[in-house]
């Protein structure tokens, strides 16, 4: 066991766990923050995506010791009231079906629109292809990412 200190959704957080434990399970089991999902355990599906220092990262293969001193943002911390442009767009387009992959989809999309103000379809495909959706919401995701980018730019309210 070892104490690991990092910033979680803007607040200081210390956990005392096995340092090899993936961040995913620290979030879900140690801290009870279940918005981040387990899908494959091998960084193949993207359901566990969080931001580490702003970068979309697969928490299922990220040992918690490696986030020491870093800033972690999960779906719970993306906004206090679902007002992030990506969340607003997801609501407007009614993207989710079963919804299980959507935390990861939203976190990946949030990182995309933060750095690419007007993503093309191929930008979206490139950024989002690591996030599987078995319900097949891909067409809605594409539409919602374009809308989120407009919200982010302030072109649409």
């Amino acid at each position, binding site marked *: 066991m070892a104490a690991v200190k990092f910033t979680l959704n803007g607040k200081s957080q210390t956990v005392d766990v096995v340092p090899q434990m993936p961040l995913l399970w620290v979030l879900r089991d140690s801290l009870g923050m279940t918005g981040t999902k387990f899908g494959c355990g091998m960084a193949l599906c993207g*359901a566990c995506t969080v931001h580490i220092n702003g970068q979309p990262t697969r928490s299922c293969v990220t040992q918690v010791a490696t986030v020491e001193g870093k800033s972690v943002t999960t779906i719970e911390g993306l906004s206090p009231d679902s007002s992030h442009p990506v969340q607003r767009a997801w609501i407007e387009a009614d993207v*989710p079906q079963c*919804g299980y992959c959507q935390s990861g989809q939203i976190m990946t999309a949030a990182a995309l629109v933060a750095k690419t103000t007007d993503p093309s379809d191929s930008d979206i495909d490139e950024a989002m292809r690591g996030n599987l959706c078995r*319900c097949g919401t891909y067409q809605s995701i594409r539409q919602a990412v374009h809308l989120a980018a407009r919200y982010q730019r302030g072109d649409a309210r």
Partner: protein
Amino acid sequence: MNPVNRRSFLKTGAAVGGGLVLGFQLPVKGQAQSASPLKLNAFVKVGTDDTVTLEIHKSEMGQGTVTSLSQLLAEELECDWKKIRTEFPGVEPVYGSPMMGTYGSLSIRTSWQPLRQAGAAAREMLMQAAAQRWNVDKSQCRAENNAVVNTATKARLTYGSLAEAAAKLPAPANVPLKTAAQYKLIGTSPKRLDTPAKVNGTAGFGIDVRRPGMLYASLERCPVFGGKVASFDATKAKTVPGVKNVVQISNGVAVIADNTWSAMEGRKALLIKWDEGKWANVSTPGLRQEWAALAAKPGQSVRKAGDAAATFAGAAKKVEAVYEAPYLSHAPMEPLNATVEVRPDGCDIWVASQIQSAAQQVAAQITGLPADKCLIHTQYLGGGFGRRGGADYVGEAVEIAKAMSPAPVQLTWTREDDLQHDTYRPASYVKFAAGLDAQGAPVSFSARIVCPPFGGNGTAVEGIQDMKYAIPNVQVDYTAPATGTPVSYWRSVGYSQNTYFMEAFLDEMAAAAGADPVEFRRKLLTGTPRLLNVLNIAADKGDWGKPLPAGRFRGVAVVNNIGSFNAQVAEVSVSQGKVKVHRVVCAVDCGQVINPAIVEAQIQSGIVYGLSTVTKLGITLDKGRVVQKNFNNYDPIRIDEMPVVEVHIVPSRENPGGIGEASTPTIVPAVVNAVYAATKKRARMLPIKAADLV
């Protein structure tokens, strides 16, 4: 299947908090008229705070049932859509007897009448309560927007203010329902009720259940189906930090820890000797050989008209082909899991299940408790697709929790567990023969289907046995091979493979006749006008026969399943054997539509689910073991492989058909037929490999 039409023997009672509960028929074991709403088979509760709580007795796995069932209730209830809350109730006969569950694309079909009745009856009681309050006749009252209005005085009483009085009234039977022209919600697309919780991480899936003192389990199963533990050594596993215990259950060895990861790590440290049993030498090539031999002989006749053999012998042109489809895993995004607490007096099961009754039964069997002491708490399903109709994972969790009683235990499967211990869509092998006359019209059609038996009667042959083409001489045979691989329902069930076989072979028949694939089908579908209609719409909207960009080709397919009809035109290109699907146009007739946006989403969803199987997914066996382990070698389509999907819904006042499984079968042959148009190569085995096309 016919919709269940529950007769309206209504019961009421006072809800906790003084609200109105309204449910149907069947008082549960002397509890009729009791105070607790949850024990009264309720669909509707009205709170004194003016909220309306709707009991959603069908599982939400993405198909939109929380929203669409609420629309059925709210249409007649005249409640404020913004004040609706929903709950998943426990197992009660009223929610499905003898089985409560969500399967067969039946939710709307079986709820269409009873839920509107439930909404209407609740509304009438609120109106009656208002009439009594005002001392006027009920005919002077009108319900609108969560309130009853006195049409003479314009006075209003909110539903909340009427709830207590209404709850004391008898429930009316046979309340007339609105006509289609009066619908305000049915046929519209209000925002989905489950979306807000699914964009901020708060939606509660089975895997998200957290109970005080809960432990986490991971289970090692025999890699060969039907195998058993011979012996095991847990010494090393017990030294893994966080591991609390190791227990053997009926189909494996479980490691229990204070977090999921420690349980998985402890599991890796187990030393287990398996008795692999009699299926340890099964391999996919061997099965194909066995099934080919079975298909060489006639099987059990499941459809016969005229004399297919004689007319084939005398046909001007003959077409013969063998088609094969692999086992498939469901792979819902949420790995299987269940959380169970076993106490001497009862058992609680928190689970994302498609068949709650089966989960309850398995818990009762394992614990020895009465079924009504095994409470099922339904959570959101992170995908179902048929997989969560099984109760195998629930039984495992109950066995482990029983060993750890009274601590609650959550069993979580890994993705590897999911792919290697599924109840699979069966592999299948079909030998076709068809004869055409000199003008190219089909005179003879025969199929010998070899497919492991699964589900109810006819599931292994549906899609061929019930094909709608007017061919005078037909012979369909079925042979069930013996296998040890567990099989079950997979989205669209037998149609998932048989529509591929049927529609691809029909394309071969059209080619042999020198006929256009759409025109060939049109001539044979005059007896099924709704299928012919969607074919015509898909052909028209899909620009059938019109020029395409260089390198693009079209294919078409149709299906009539789950009480609905759909046709698809797929546009593909093939480059160095790699298939790219650019555009899919789908026409669907599913009768009266409740929520068009959800219908469209389900059509897209079904297409993605089916499309993954054309070029990518297949489960193969080697030495009794499933070869595929994770999304690296069982890799569904991703966003960059998503075609543009256009959906055209036929306006209809027919009773609703199903939608969740409508489009999955059709996409497969539509793409396979387009690939033929592009390459002149028939993909008679899936998934298509690039080498097959170059």
